[in-house]
């Protein structure tokens, strides 16, 4: 007969479906990190001098951190030290010649994205979604470019933006996450290889979802992409990021930086479905996902909303944050983090209230199974000038089994007495009684889990664009598959 323990074991042992490797000829920098590596990357991308200087500055800062304090020690994550000299910092599929159109992209790569459910070819494109596909260190293709250009929207790879829109890039890059922010932000600024760039002009409501799909393919390589989104006055954009990687025994590093900027009355909705390879049942291999994501509500009455569904990676360390500088601006963070087997997640957000009447909402849902550890870490800071700041925080944990852990660490710093803050938290466990009740109504243990988990996550899922809400539900269900007694 099916027992809960059996199910929990099965849940914890879910197989990873995106673990295949694409066989393409790659061009890589030799492993290791030094000034030459950075020159190599910069040269490959034909970057202007200022960009190289910017990288170098970050690199020297990184070195000073490496010598001194090293890695951030406060997170509730544990891993052997990363050897930064073993990593390949640049790896790209060898292009046969300049690509004039998508039809010239290596068919192996196109079929990779197809297998991942992200068709790039004209005739099969996702309806109403523009995709930028990043394969290891480079952007492969961006769809719907012309359509977007009609509205004056720029959506391209970061490398292209450095070439085509240097003024915008130069003005905003590092303005939200400076290289001095943290260890991995410094590393990223030094070696970032590609990523997406997006600019929505004044008063334009982006007519479709924008998506970047990140794929790590090469062995031994790290992925260091950088994304920059600027929403000019009165504009709106909804952006989604997805990711996956092959199954490998060694750990691979993903250290991305994402910067969002909203000017007056603008809104950015940024959603992530993170499904990097989590490692095997024994905790071997998997991606170290050390990411710095931050947005600034620069203008008044602007809004930034982060939604994330985190199911992959051996270790996740990320705190998508919002700096609420403009008066009346709004920051939101909606998160589901599912950890199983030996996965570790330390994730949460920071809401920094600077402007008057700024409001923030935090809804974080952690689900743990197997031996996984799931930590919510959040900071709400209200600065002296932020009169009438308002925050609501809710962080809930759901435990499947009794060998996993859930932790919540909310920090609050209030320096203005008019602030109104509310905090709620609860931890629940799927009980034998609940499962039996479901079973008695004909619902299998597997479906009962997915009903309960979907119910637990629904406040977050309803924030996702519809197609992706379906995708997120499917992803969680897939993570629960194979739970037969």
């Amino acid at each position: 007969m099916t027992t809960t323990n059996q199910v929990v074991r099965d849940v914890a042992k879910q197989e990873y479906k995106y673990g295949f490797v694409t066989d393409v000829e790659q061009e890589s920098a030799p492993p290791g990190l030094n000034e030459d590596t950075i020159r190599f990357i910069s040269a490959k991308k034909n970057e202007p001098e200022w960009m190289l200087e910017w990288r170098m500055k970050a690199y020297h800062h990184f070195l000073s951190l490496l010598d001194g304090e090293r890695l951030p020690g406060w997170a509730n994550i544990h891993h052997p030290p990363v050897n930064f000299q073993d990593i390949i910092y640049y790896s790209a599929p060898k292009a046969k010649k300049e690509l004039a159109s998508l039809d010239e992209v290596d068919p192996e790569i196109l079929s990779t994205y197809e297998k991942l459910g992200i068709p790039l070819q004209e005739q099969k494109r996702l309806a109403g979604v523009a995709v930028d596909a990043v394969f290891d260190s480079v952007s492969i293709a961006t769809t719907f470019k012309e359509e977007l250009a009609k509205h004056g929207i720029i959506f391209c790879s970061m490398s292209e933006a450095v070439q085509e829109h240097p003024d915008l890039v130069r003005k905003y890059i590092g303005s939200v996450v400076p290289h001095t922010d943290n260890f991995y932000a410094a590393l990223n600024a030094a070696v970032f290889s590609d990523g997406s760039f997006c600019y929505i002009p004044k008063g334009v409501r982006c007519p479709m979802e924008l998506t970047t799909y990140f794929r790590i393919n090469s062995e031994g390589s790290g992925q260091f992409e950088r994304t920059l989104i600027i929403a000019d006055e009165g504009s709106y954009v909804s952006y989604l990021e997805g990711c996956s990687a092959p199954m490998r025994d060694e750990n691979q590093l993903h250290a991305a930086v994402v910067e969002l900027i909203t000017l007056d009355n603008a809104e950015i909705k940024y959603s992530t479905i993170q499904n990097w390879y989590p490692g095997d049942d024994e905790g071997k291999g998997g991606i170290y996902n050390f990411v710095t994501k931050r947005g600034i509500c620069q203008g008044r009455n602007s809004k930034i909303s982060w939604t994330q569904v985190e199911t992959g990676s051996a270790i996740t360390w990320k705190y998508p944050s919002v700096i609420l500088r403009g008066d009346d601006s709004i920051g939101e963070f909606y998160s589901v983090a599912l950890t199983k087997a030996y996965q570790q997640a330390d994730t949460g957000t920071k809401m920094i209230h600077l402007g008057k009447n700024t409001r923030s909402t935090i809804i974080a849902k952690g689900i743990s199974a197997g031996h996984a550890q799931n930590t919510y870490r959040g900071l709400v800071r209200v600065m002296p000038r932020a009169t009438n700041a308002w925050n609501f925080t809710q962080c809930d944990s759901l435990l499947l089994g009794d060998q996993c852990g859930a932790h919540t660490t909310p920090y609050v710093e209030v320096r203005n007495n008019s602030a109104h803050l509310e905090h709620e938290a609860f931890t629940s466990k799927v009980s034998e009684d609940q499962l039996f009740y479901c079973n008695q109504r004909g619902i299998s243990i597997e479906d009962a889990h997915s009903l309960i988990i979907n119910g637990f996550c629904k406040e977050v899922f309803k924030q996702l664009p519809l197609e992706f809400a379906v995708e997120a539900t499917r992803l969680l269900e897939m993570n629960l598959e194979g739970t037969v007694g």
Partner: protein
Amino acid sequence: MLQITNLHASVGDVEILKGVDLQVNAGEVHAIMGPNGSGKSTLANVLAGNPSFTTTAGDATFEGESLLGMPPEDRARAGLFLCFQHPIEVPGVRLDHFMRAGFNAIRKSKGMDEYDVLKFDRLLNERVDVVEMDRNLTKRSVNEGFSGGEKKRNEVLQMAIFEPKLSILDEPDSGLDVDALRIVADGINQLRRPDNAIILVTHYQRILNYVVPDQVHVLIDGRIVRSGGKELALEVESRGYDHLGRPAEATQASG
């Protein structure tokens, strides 16, 4: 329909059912009465396949097939329904979604087409009337924050939706006000058919005035010590259980 022979069941090392025999045929209503802790809910849960209990001896067959070793969801799909004495809360899961999931799982197992939201809504609208339940209640989380009476109505509503062959109702009447009792009892009566059967666990003779049983059984200390007609319930009500005595060995054992 249901045949229980010499059924023994325990929780951990403690034996609770000590040899129960019972036969229920299609079209019949059987009432089970007995003092607190005598094993009535245990019997109901064992029949429904609650994994907290282990069957140590005897057998129970449902339509000729042994229930032992059959997973609880398969028993439900075969047409066995348990109306819980203490319905379970499932936070975050909407009651109507929950019922549709179960309803469709049962249909699917029989190779029948599943109901979409609209079709199920229509069915639901029709069946809430059986227990005069507020339709808005079905949009809340399963049993979460429901009053005692609402929980009981919800159980009978689900019985009306699933149309089981055998319903085991564990104290559907406890905690109900007079009007609610009549409504729930009427609901149960509406669901009585020649091809289904009901086991009704209760402490009170009162519900049996509405849902008239074919047989009444008294369960004491894990055994059925008396069976009789409707009048046995009246006897229990006026004289209590003491005079019904216990089986000889049990009396010796308890000293």
